[in-house]
C-alpha cells in the first residue's frame, strides 16, 4: 500500500513536471496584486506587465511563469547576487544601460540563432532597439520599449498664465531665460510652482540636468575621461537652480511627493518618464484629482540641440541556463516571444514601442496623448556605455542634490563629481 501511494505520487509529480515547465521571472516595475490576464484593461507599468506575464502563464502550453519577489530600489543588487550565487531567474528584465556590465562578463545568453525558432523576428525591431540589445554583434536580449523623460503638463495652470498657443498646445521655453519668465508668469497667475520633479531621491533631477548638458553638445564622460567640470555643466545646473532660488520650484520633493504635487494642481509641469502617461491620463479623468487637463510634451530644447534622457527596457536569459538546461531555456524563449507579441499592450503605459509593425499600427497611434510627444524618439540620448553606469549615476545624484538641497557650490560639487567619476572610470 505504502509503495502504491509513493508510486502514484511520483507519477503525479512526473506528469505535472512534464506538462508545465516552470520559468522563474525577475522584474522591477513594482507590485500589482490582482493584475488578471486581460492585457488590454490593466493600468500602470506594474499591472500592465504583470497582466502580460499572467497571460503568458495561462496561455502558453506547458509553461508556467513564476514571478519572483524583487524590490525596485535594490533590483540590480539582487540580480547580481543571484548570478554570483548561481541562481539567477530564468528570464529577467533589465535596462540597456546595464548591458556592458552583464554582457561584458558573459552573463547573458546569446539568443541570436534561437530567436526565429521561438517566433521572434528581430527584423521587425527598430534599428535603435536592435542596437540596444546587441553586444559584440550578438543579440543578448529582447527589447521591450524606449522610454524617455517628458514634460507632463497641467494645461489649466498653463492657460491661466497665457502659456497655451492657438492650436491648444503648451508654449514651452526655448532658453533658460525664457524658462524663468514662464515660471514667474505661472507663479504670478496661479500662485503655484512652475516645475516639479524628484530632485531629492531618484536621479530624475540628474536626467534633467544631463539633457541640458547634451543640448549644449557636451557630456559627463568620454571614453575613460570624466568631462564633468565644464561651463556646459554649470549652464545646465544654473538653468535649474534659478527656479529654486526664485522659489518657483521645490527641490526637496521626492518621487511620490513631486508626483502628488502635480496631481494636486500645485505644479504646472512635472518632469518624469514616459511610464506614467497612462496613469496621469486616467488620473486626469478622475474628478477627485485636481489635475484635469493633461498634456504630455516632448522635453523642450533650452540650448542648441534637442536632447532628452532615454533608455530601454529589455528581457534577457542567463547564459548558464542556455548551457545547462535546454528545456527551461526553450520555455524561457517562449515567454520572451509572448512579451514581444504584446509590445502594443506594453506601449499602453506611455512607453514607445520597439517593433516597426506596432509603431505603424492604427492602434498605437490611437493611444492617449501619443501624438503629443512624437518628437521624443529623435532626441533620445544617454551617457556613453559603461560597466560603471550605476555608480556614476549615484555620484551625479549625490553631488547635484548637494547643490540644491545643501547649498554646496556648483564649483565644488562639479570638482568633486569630476574626481569621483574619474576614479570610477580608472578602476
Amino acid at each position, binding site marked *: 500500500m505504502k509503495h502504491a501511494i509513493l508510486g502514484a505520487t511520483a507519477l503525479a509529480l512526473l506528469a505535472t513536471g512534464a506538462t508545465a515547465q516552470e520559468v522563474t521571472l525577475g522584474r522591477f516595475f513594482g507590485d500589482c496584486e490582482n493584475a488578471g490576464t486581460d492585457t488590454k484593461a490593466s493600468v500602470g507599468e506594474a499591472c500592465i506587465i504583470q497582466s502580460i506575464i499572467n497571460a503568458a502563464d495561462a496561455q502558453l502550453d506547458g509553461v508556467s511563469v513564476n514571478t519572483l519577489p524583487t524590490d525596485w530600489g535594490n533590483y540590480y543588487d539582487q540580480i547580481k547576487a543571484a548570478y554570483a550565487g548561481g541562481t539567477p531567474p530564468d528570464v529577467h528584465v533589465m535596462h540597456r544601460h546595464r548591458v556592458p556590465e552583464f554582457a561584458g562578463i*558573459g552573463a547573458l545568453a546569446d539568443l541570436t540563432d534561437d530567436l526565429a525558432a521561438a517566433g521572434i523576428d528581430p527584423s521587425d525591431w527598430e534599428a535603435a532597439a536592435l542596437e540596444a540589445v546587441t553586444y559584440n554583434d550578438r543579440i543578448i536580449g529582447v527589447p521591450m520599449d524606449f522610454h524617455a523623460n517628458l514634460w507632463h503638463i497641467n494645461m489649466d495652470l498653463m492657460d491661466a498664465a497665457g502659456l497655451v498657443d492657438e492650436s491648444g498646445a503648451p508654449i514651452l521655453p526655448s532658453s533658460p531665460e525664457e524658462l524663468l519668465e514662464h515660471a514667474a508668469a505661472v507663479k504670478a497667475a496661479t500662485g503655484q510652482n512652475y516645475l516639479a520633479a524628484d530632485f531629492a531621491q531618484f536621479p530624475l533631477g540628474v536626467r534633467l540636468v544631463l539633457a541640458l548638458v547634451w543640448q549644449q553638445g557636451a557630456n559627463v564622460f568620454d571614453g575613460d575621461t570624466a568631462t564633468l567640470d565644464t561651463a556646459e555643466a554649470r549652464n545646465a545646473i544654473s538653468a535649474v537652480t534659478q527656479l529654486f532660488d526664485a522659489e518657483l520650484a521645490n527641490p526637496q520633493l521626492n518621487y511620490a511627493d513631486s508626483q502628488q504635487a502635480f496631481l494636486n494642481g500645485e505644479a504646472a509641469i512635472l518632469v518624469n518618464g514616459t511610464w506614467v502617461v497612462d496613469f496621469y491620463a486616467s488620473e486626469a479623468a478622475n474628478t477627485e484629482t485636481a489635475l484635469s487637463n493633461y498634456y504630455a510634451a516632448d522635453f523642450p530644447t533650452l540650448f542648441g540641440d534637442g536632447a532628452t534622457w532615454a533608455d530601454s527596457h529589455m528581457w534577457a536569459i542567463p547564459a548558464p541556463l542556455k548551457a545547462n538546461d535546454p528545456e527551461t531555456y526553450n520555455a524561457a524563449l517562449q515567454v520572451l516571444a509572448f512579451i514581444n507579441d504584446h509590445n502594443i499592450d506594453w506601449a499602453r503605459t506611455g512607453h514607445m514601442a520597439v517593433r516597426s509593425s506596432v509603431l505603424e499600427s492604427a492602434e498605437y497611434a490611437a493611444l492617449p496623448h501619443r501624438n503629443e510627444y512624437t518628437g521624443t524618439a529623435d532626441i533620445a540620448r544617454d551617457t556613453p556605455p559603461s560597466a560603471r553606469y550605476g555608480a556614476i549615476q549615484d555620484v551625479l545624484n549625490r553631488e547635484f542634490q548637494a547643490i540644491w538641497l545643501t547649498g554646496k557650490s556648483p564649483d565644488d560639487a562639479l570638482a568633486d563629481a569630476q574626481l569621483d567619476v574619474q576614479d570610477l572610470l580608472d578602476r
Partner: protein
Amino acid sequence: MPQHQAKRLALSQRQAALILLLPFMVVYGLFLVYPFFNGVWISLHDWNLMAVAFNPDAKAFVGLQNYERVMWGRNITWGAFASPALQVIGLLGMLASFLLYRSGRAGRVTAIAMGLAALLLFVLPGFHPGEGGRWYDRRFWPTVGNTILFVGLAVPGVTITAMLLAAALNGETRAKAVLRTLFFLSQVLSVTVVTLIWQIMFSPRQGLLANVTELLGGSPIVWLTAEGFAMAAIVIATIWWSLGIAMILFLAGLQDISQDLYEAGALDNATGAKAFWYITLPNLKRTITVVVVLQIILHFQVFGQSHLMTNGGPNDTTQVLVRYIYQTAFRDSELGRASAMAVFLFVIMGAFSILQFVLGREKDE
C-alpha cells in the same frame, strides 16, 4: 562524580562536553568562522562579484592594496592640530582619564580604555592630505565619521529613554504591564516596516509631524532631505525601534535593587528624583554598561534606516559604513574592496566587545 558512575558512562566529562559542543562548533565554524576568514581572504584580492562567479580565475591577489585604496591617500601627512576641535578633545580626554585614575574615581582598566580612546581621537584626525595630495577614497572617512555620529546620538538616546521608561513602568499595576508591552512592541518590527512608518511620519505632505507643525503655525520640515535634519530623523526612528530590549534590561536591573535601600533612603528624606539619583542610578551602573556596549556594537551596523529612509543623503550626510560596504560589493561588484571595509568594521566592533569583556570582569573583582 563517583568513580563507578563514570565508568558506566564510559565518557569522561571532557568527552561529553566535546560531543555536546560539537553541533554548536560545527554550525558556528561553518556559518561564522569560515565566512569571516573567507572575507579576510577576499579582502586581499581584486575580486569582482560577477566576474569571479563566471570565471573563478578572474580574481587577482593584491595584498593590502584594497586597504590602502580605501583608507589611505597620496601625500598623507600628520599634524598635531590638523583638525583642532577633535584633537583638543582627545588631549583633554587623555588628561581627564589620568586625573580620574589618580583620584581613584575610575578603575585602572576604565582609565586605560578611556585614555586609549582619547589617544585615538588625538592621533586619527591628525592625518590629512598634504600639498597636492588626496585621499584615494574621499568618502570613506566621512562615512566612518557619520557612522560614529550616528552611534554617538543613538546610543545615549536609546539608553536614557529606555532607562527613564523602565523607571516609570517598573511596578505591578495593570496599566504599567500594558504600557511595557506597548513600548516593547516596536522592537519586533522589521527594519522595512519601521522605516516605512517613519517615512510617513516625516513626510512633509501627509506626515503626522508636518501636520503638528502646521497646526502650530510653522511650515513643515522636510526631514529626510534637509541636511540638518536627516541624521536626526534616522536617529529618532532608531531610538523608537530599539527601545524595547534596553528597557527590558533596565527593568531586570531595577528589580534587582533591594527595596530596603529605598526604605532606608526614605528615612533620610531621599524620595522621587533624589532616590533615583542616589539609589537607582548607582545600582544600575552595571546594567548601563551592558546596555551601552551592546547598543554601540548594534548601531555600528546601522544599514536599513539609512538605505531606506534617506538613501545616504543629502550630500552623504547619512551615508553609513555598512551601506557603503553594501554598495561597493553589490552595486559596484567590488567584493575585495568591500571586504576590506568590512574587516575595518570588524576591528571597531571587536574593540568594543573586548571593552565589554574587560569592564564586565573588572566589576567582578
